[in-house]
């Protein structure tokens, strides 16, 4: 089975969600600055185009991916459903997973600044701070 985490217009949250699923990030405690920075850094170095999945790892025969569909979630779902209908995808189970969370401003602004590159250090710190604040809610929503 293949499992794709996505969140409207973002790739950082699906990435962290996938790493939590894989137990590469703890569900018991908030990850350190370095742990989160390392996770985000991988995406900053190799930004993904819309619709391109990022393979995160495998757990219990389930392959975990993070993917960004921008704001066109419905269109993306229809595209994948269409591939199944025309038998262009294997019979293997493909699952799209999303979650609802209220994002904080540190996370939003921090990610933008980090990506922009000119205020990279400030952006990175803000993003990690925002992610640490959000982390318990993210874990809780994933446990559901």
């Amino acid at each position, binding site marked *: 089975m293949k499992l794709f985490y996505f969140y409207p217009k973002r790739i950082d949250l699906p990435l962290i969600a996938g790493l939590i699923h894989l137990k590469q990030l703890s569900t018991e405690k908030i990850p350190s600055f370095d742990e989160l920075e390392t996770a985000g850094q991988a995406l900053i170095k190799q930004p993904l*185009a819309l*619709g*391109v999945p990022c393979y995160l790892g495998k757990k219990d025969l389930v392959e975990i991916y993070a993917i960004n569909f921008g704001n*066109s979630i419905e*269109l993306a779902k*229809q*595209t994948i459903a269409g*591939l199944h209908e025309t038998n262009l995808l294997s019979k293997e189970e493909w699952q799209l997973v999303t979650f609802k969370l209220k994002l904080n401003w540190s996370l939003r602004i921090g990610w933008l600044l980090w990506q922009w590159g000119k205020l990279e250090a400030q952006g990175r710190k803000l993003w990690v701070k925002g992610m640490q604040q959000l982390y318990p809610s993210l874990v809780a929503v994933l446990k559901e």
Partner: protein
Amino acid sequence: MKIIYHCFGGAHASPTTAAIHLKMISNRHLPAMMDFKNISKFDLAIGKDHGKLNYLGTDHQGNEVYIMGREHQAVMVINIIKEFVKLSGGNPDEYHFINCCQSFNLLMVIGGFSSRRLGWVWFGRPLVTLGTLLAFPKLVAIVKKIWTIPHLES
């Protein structure tokens, strides 16, 4: 090879271009307005069809010809198709995507929106048909360009 003609809604430019490709409609002269009634899937697709490959036929070289609506998200939809096919063990290089949007004109936009989005078929269909007729030479040029690509031969 799979040849996929795509445009915003997959209802006018791409079905007409695919019909020219499949020789369901002659490319030697302008069709009559009535001829568009014979084009498979012309002015039929709606929102829930977007993103889905619609098979129209196989050409004389054995290439499968599809049409697709992808709204303003051509890059994302094409990425999803290619990446998911790759993950599924298929060969994404077999998929050849051709954008038909450069043929759009105002009549096609207004007529297409009225017919497909608003459901005013009585108003939109004649407009979009006339628009497609005016765009016909551009659509023929797209197909002729595709026919010259050697690797599309089976």
